[in-house]
């Protein structure tokens, strides 16, 4: 064979890096060192003596921790190899992690934050020496207020769920302040709202009432009417829900809750398709939250650090966690004097690197850019919807024929009925093409689900590639189902047995537990 090279086939012939690495403990060699630390200088030693020997009985560690001993380059190499065994949004067409808004995290923002001027600031240093970072906090609060229509925004929460918690804690404080703390014992949410809404409410001491969708996929308004009462503390709801269906009667939902004295909190983690289109406050919400790691581009970091922002109306503002950043026209400062505040929700002021990244992202786009983001996310989603619906066996339950906002929860139910292959199995086979999808949160209201959210970040070609992969795997499910059932084949590892993970006798959450339980080793 010689030049020219034949055209590439339609689908890439992928193989994930496979290094077959041991567990890090297996790399240990006695005496090796990965890094050295500063040692007490002779002067200090002379002054203080042997501080370790001087520790009281029982306080001194009797034997060194059984950490591995590995030279620096080998540690590095091990983790670099592991990194290649991790897809990452930068590497793949990450539209399969629907509801997670896997958009591009611009590299320039990494360059911006990785400076000692940010990474090496102490939270309690003089405010005068932290004016830059304080201004970023202050400005981002104002931008998010504009985007949501809310009056004040807290940036303290470490993630979306943490922001939901913050909102629930403010709801609790609000009712308590009005003397209705004991009466308002119920929180209402919907089954398509993120599970953390229900779980945070429960953790805050509330009883949770869950509304299911009606036949069109909208949260059932009659169920809501039946659920509200003077026990209602709040409605926690998202819109669009993870189906990508926008609830046109959302204002009515809020009014119904307001009508009984409850508050309405908007889970705006799904805001990517509506930036600059509609504001939370327009629908009457009292509280809302954003995920900076979704809509505002901060990287997902293998599952955090993330960042959540809680926006509230003026009425709720006194309850915001502290401290808030204020500006006296001259200097930015931290206002700790907030008597009605729910207090601290995090050690200091929020996840600084993500707050700065989010600010930089908005500054790079401006209003016009944010609107382009929303519109393109929605265009991409409706385009992908079209491509997926063209695949025999795939469907998008509810609201059939209608447009979606930024994501869609799909179903392989038909394909499953025809072939017996499940959505989970299809997902594992998709991995063989260097892509992935997830099903969705439990419970699987949609049968054999998969959830796609293309965001604004992917080119049409990449959306087409993704749809082509799905079509190919669906074809395989009919024609060579065993290939699908035994997948993955081109991945770092092969089909994994999950049976031990739920058995307390056998599960191995750490290497030491594994060695103890399965090899009888005792430290």
């Amino acid at each position, binding site marked *: 064979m010689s030049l020219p090279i034949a055209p590439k086939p339609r689908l890439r012939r992928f193989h994930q890096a496979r290094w077959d690495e041991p567990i890090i403990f297996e790399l240990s060699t006695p005496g090796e060192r990965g890094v050295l630390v500063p040692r007490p200088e002779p002067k200090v030693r002379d002054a203080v003596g042997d501080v370790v020997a001087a520790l009281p009985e029982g306080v001194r560690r009797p034997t060194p921790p059984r950490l591995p001993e590995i030279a620096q380059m080998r540690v590095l190499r091990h983790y670099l190899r592991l990194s290649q065994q991790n897809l990452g949004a930068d590497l793949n067409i990450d539209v399969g992690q629907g509801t997670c808004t896997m958009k591009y995290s611009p590299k320039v923002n990494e360059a911006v934050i990785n400076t*000692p001027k940010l990474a090496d600031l102490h939270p309690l240093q003089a405010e005068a020496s932290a004016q830059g970072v304080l201004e970023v906090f202050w400005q981002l609060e104002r931008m998010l207020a504009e985007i949501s229509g809310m009056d004040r925004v807290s940036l303290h929460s470490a993630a979306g769920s943490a922001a939901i*918690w913050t909102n629930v804690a403010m709801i609790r404080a609000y009712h308590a302040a009005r003397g209705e703390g004991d009466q308002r014992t119920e929180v209402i949410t919907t089954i398509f709202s993120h599970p953390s809404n229900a779980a945070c409410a429960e953790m805050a001491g509330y009883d949770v009432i869950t509304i299911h969708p009606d036949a069109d996929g909208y949260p059932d308004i009659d169920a809501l009417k039946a659920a509200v009462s003077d026990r209602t503390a709040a409605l926690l709801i998202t819109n669009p829900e993870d189906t990508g269906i926008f609830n046109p009667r959302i204002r009515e939902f809020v009014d119904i809750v307001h009508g009984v004295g409850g508050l309405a909190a908007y889970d705006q983690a799904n805001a990517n398709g509506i930036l600059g*289109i509609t504001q939370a406050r327009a629908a009457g919400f009292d509280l809302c939250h954003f995920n900076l790691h979704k809509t505002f581009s901060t990287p997902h970091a293998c599952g955090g650090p993330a960042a959540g922002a809680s926006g509230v109306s003026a009425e709720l503002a006194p309850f915001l966690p502290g401290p808030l950043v204020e500006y006296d026209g001259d200097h930015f400062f931290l206002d700790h004097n907030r008597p009605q505040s729910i207090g*601290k929700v995090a050690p200091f*002021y929020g996840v600084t690197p993500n707050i700065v990244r989010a600010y930089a992202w908005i500054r790079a*786009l*401006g209003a016009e850019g944010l609107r382009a983001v929303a519109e393109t996310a929605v*265009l991409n989603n409706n385009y992908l919807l079209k491509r997926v619906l063209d695949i025999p066996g795939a469907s998008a339950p509810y609201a059939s024929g209608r447009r979606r906002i930024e994501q869609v929860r799909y179903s392989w139910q038909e394909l499953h009925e025809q072939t017996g292959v499940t959505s989970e199995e299809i997902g594992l086979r998709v991995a063989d093409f260097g892509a992935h999808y997830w099903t969705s949160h439990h419970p699987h209201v949609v049968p054999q689900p998969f959830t796609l959210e293309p965001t604004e970040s992917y080119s049409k070609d990449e959306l087409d590639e993704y749809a082509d992969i799905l079509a190919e795997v669906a074809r395989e499910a009919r024609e060579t189902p065993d290939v699908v059932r035994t997948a993955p084949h081109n991945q770092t*590892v092969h089909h994994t047995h999950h049976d031990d993970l739920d058995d307390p006798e056998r599960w191995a959450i750490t290497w030491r537990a594994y060695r103890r339980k399965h090899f009888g080793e005792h430290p």
Partner: protein
Amino acid sequence: MTEPFVHPYVPNTAPRTRAAMLEAVGATSIDEFYADCPPELRLDRPLDLPAPLLSETELVRHMDGLLNRNVSTREVLSFLGAGTYQHQVPAVVEEVINRSEFLTAYAGEPYEDHGRFQALFQYQSLMAELLNMDVVNVPTYDGFQATGTALTMAGRLTGRQQVLVVSDVHPDKLAKVRDYVRPYLDLVHITSRGSGADVDAVLAHVSKNAEIVACVWVETPSYHGAVETELRRLADAAHEAGALLVVGTDPIGLGVLAPPADLGADIVCGDIQSLGLRQWYGGAHAGFIAVHDDPRFVMELPSRLFGLASTTVPGEYGFGDVAFERTSLAIREDGKEWVGTAAALWGIAAGVYLALMGPAGMAELGETLLAHTRYAMDQLAAIPGVVLADDGVHLREFVVDVSGTGLSATDVVTTLRGRGIEPGVVVDEHRLLVCVTEVHTSQDIDRLAGEIASLVKETPA
């Protein structure tokens, strides 16, 4: 109006592509997609945001302009701690966590994200060795959250409501914990002796309230840096009453200090910022919770737990979620508390850190910290009018009382800031919390002592 632009972050705004896609889906305008959003909810104006900084040149110039107004702890001499610490961060740690694959991954399956699962399993395992406990969670948000959860776990496990707070706890942490546990637990304080718990008072209280105490909560090092030396007695007392011992700690000292589990702790929790994370203006925290491999305890953890699993190929390490059905992701409000995006990357960082440090690194670091702390305590205590709040064993932090100098703690801070030193965190009118780590040299500490001494000298008594 700006010129129309195709933004590098939004490929399909390219006019031809946009048109082709609209055509493919049979739409004539983007607006059609928003049909479900009623007009009265629609924003009828552009968002009021600053004009975009379209080129990286403009963006970076703007951001640099802002951030250069900060003065970092590399530029001044800082003795600030109180929750966020300045430690050596090995370059390899940052290389690993800045890898695109780790930085931008989220929630892939154990197949395509095998690296993430293994890295976090290793984090759990490395922490477990340091703590001598068999189960460690994928990190939660921060030490505050971890503590709140550890205490509510104790409540759920014992079915009781009273938490005995026996150490000096950072007031902010206490505020967070109090609001967090409000529906389930009462915090009862037994004033500490400064250098540690007032064990006799704790014993007396526990024996009187044996039926209602859910746990004894110890912080070691305490808010004031004091190492608790009576853990074993506190554990015994708690256990005798059917209660648990919950210990909050910073693992940084565990190369030389006995792991709380060795002395009877049932749940150990805290923050891992010290293990390979920069300070980030207090924005880089992650919380750990460790328990023994007892399913009652494990099933109370809200966090994800990654475990080993076999694959169809012998000798291949697979991974998966252990007991996922515990979690709110699986069963919503019926799960334990909640779990969502947490602080996984910081866990990976801490894992790399511990792998680099090894037993010798942690032991040497612990020794350096104890030595530097003792040295700093001695130097400051030698200044006329300055006394140590207590003379217990301290790791990294200690409190000095400056009332004898005629100065307030704020005076000291204000003046020393003017001289390029952040001498510590004001605890109250006369007390200052000073933090030293391995990054300080004797010269640094001498300079601190020298500047305070000369300030004292300058001050009329």
